[in-house]
């Protein structure tokens, strides 16, 4: 247990991404413990998706390293499942075939019956048994995203990466799928890294929330511990006094501090805070140094 504390399951060290002269983010440092659900929140353009793609192995960083379970992440791997923003289902395949495609990739030696049994289990998990032989075009947006989640879980990855999976869904559907995701993660003890723009979503789902400052030279500026118990529920969440303290902290950050901390003014090693339980942090200094013209 103590070693786990010292060296998290996923460790990101000094990650930097540059396009020519412009630095999108630099010195991004954070860790994720096994079985932990971590959300990253920040404004558009701060490089959240790039960080996720680096974790997935789809993009490479200009500098820095990512270690998973002590080994460096050097490319895509079946150990990390990805749920893409636009569901990314193959439209010529049925739900069954889409998930089977992933299952056969993970276990190439499996028989047809084995694959199908596994597929059905995960389709049932997201409650889409009735739609298993439909094509994605016949499904609603929420159903498609559920198939994407089922596909990612079906390969039983050691870590799950979700790129703003509910961004395009209406509030009602979003709530239902959030509950489902929460339930599945609790059952499977999945380690999750998720991008979101929705503060409430982050508070509901995440054990810790990474706050990213604005680009250029964005950084993970602060880590917010979710001090509410893990059996959070959407219906009762907002009755907990902690809820508003955390929420206000996140909103304050997004509205004001994220901008003040752009251009690399955020600390390279983010502090971990527990809003409402910590002594209030010092207000940001007024004499912000003059902005360098990048």
């Amino acid at each position, binding site marked *: 247990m103590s070693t786990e504390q010292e060296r998290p399951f996923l460790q990101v060290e000094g990650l930097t991404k540059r396009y020519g002269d412009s630095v999108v983010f630099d010195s991004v440092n954070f860790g994720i413990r096994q079985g932990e659900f971590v959300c990253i929140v920040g404004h558009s353009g701060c490089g959240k998706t790039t960080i996720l793609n680096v974790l997935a192995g*789809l993009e490479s960083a200009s500098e820095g390293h990512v270690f998973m379970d002590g080994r460096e992440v050097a490319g895509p791997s079946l150990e990390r499942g*990805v749920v893409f923003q636009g569901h990314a289902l193959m439209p010529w395949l049925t739900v069954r075939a889409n998930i089977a495609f992933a299952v056969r990739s993970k276990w190439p030696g499996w028989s047809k019956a084995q694959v199908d049994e596994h597929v059905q289990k995960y389709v049932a998990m997201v409650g889409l048994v009735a739609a298993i032989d439909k094509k994605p075009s016949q499904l609603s947006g929420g159903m498609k995203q559920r198939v994407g989640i089922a596909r990612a879980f079906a390969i039983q990855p050691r870590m799950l990466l979700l790129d703003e999976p509910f961004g395009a869904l209406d509030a009602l559907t979003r709530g239902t799928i959030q509950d489902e995701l929460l339930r599945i993660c609790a059952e499977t003890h999945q380690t999750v890294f998720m991008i979101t723009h929705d503060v409430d979503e982050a508070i509901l789902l995440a054990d810790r929330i990474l706050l990213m400052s604005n680009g250029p030279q964005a950084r993970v500026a602060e880590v917010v511990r979710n001090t509410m118990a893990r059996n959070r529920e959407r219906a009762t969440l907002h009755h907990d006094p902690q809820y508003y303290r955390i929420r206000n902290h996140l909103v304050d950050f997004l509205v004001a501090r994220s901008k003040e901390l752009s251009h690399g003014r955020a600390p390279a090693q983010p502090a971990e805070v527990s809003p409402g339980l910590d002594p209030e942090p010092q207000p940001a200094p007024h004499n912000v140094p003059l902005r360098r013209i990048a």
Partner: protein
Amino acid sequence: MAASLNLRAALLSLVILLGLLAVWHVATLAPAPAVAAAPAAVLTPEQIEYAKLMGKDPAASTAAPAAKSGFPTLAQMGTVIAKNLASPFYDNGPNDKGVGLQLAYSLGRVGLGYGIAALVAIPLGFVIGMSPLVYRALDPYIQVLKPISPLAWMPLALYTIKDSSISGIFVIFICSVWPMLINTAFGVASVRREWLNVAKTLEVTPLRRAFEVILPAAAPTILTGMRISMGIAWLVIVAAEMLVGGTGIGYFVWNEWNNLSLPNVIFAILVIGVVGMLLDLAFARLQKAVTYVD
């Protein structure tokens, strides 16, 4: 509603057909015998004598002008069609073969030339589509070679191959290769990034990626190219066979022109049209089978 529209369309088609046939009938109507007989009546006995000496029969010429006008009447056309359809596969030597046999020769050439073109164009298109380097390197060649009329290759083909039949096949090859090549390259190059990313994160082997992701994703575009190619090949085969001679539906048309048998020429034109339509329909079916709704 749709049924009634189809019915009305069919009815209108029938009316147009009847109208065309009526125009044909009126245009080829035999001139009144009374008018035709008049010139013979005014001939003096000496003139009749002279005509007979010259090997002409003035009495016969008065009765026959309608039959000798060349363009067939509907009834003549009908008998020619019936005769050709009754025995399409007879073979009375090089210049007298049934239309079915000639059609088989043409279809064989198109099939062979087109088949080889597909075998070359689709794999090459894959390579071009996947590699921007190859795409740029080959683009100037494709742009120059594409607009060349396939028949312009004929003398070169005849000189180098020294076989008229194979030259015909080569011409079909060269005209059907471009649309397939370009469409395959375009289809492969524009496969959505997210589907390729899914394949990457699932560590899919290159062969599986090509056949299970890129091929089905690009199939509608490839099939469109194949359909265009088949249309062009069927246009070109007639002209090529007119040049090369020997066998085939194009040669049949040319041979019947030399025989001054317009009914047979008209019949061949109709056959070319119907076969071309059937080929196109077959590809339309295939295209529908691989098209997916996104």
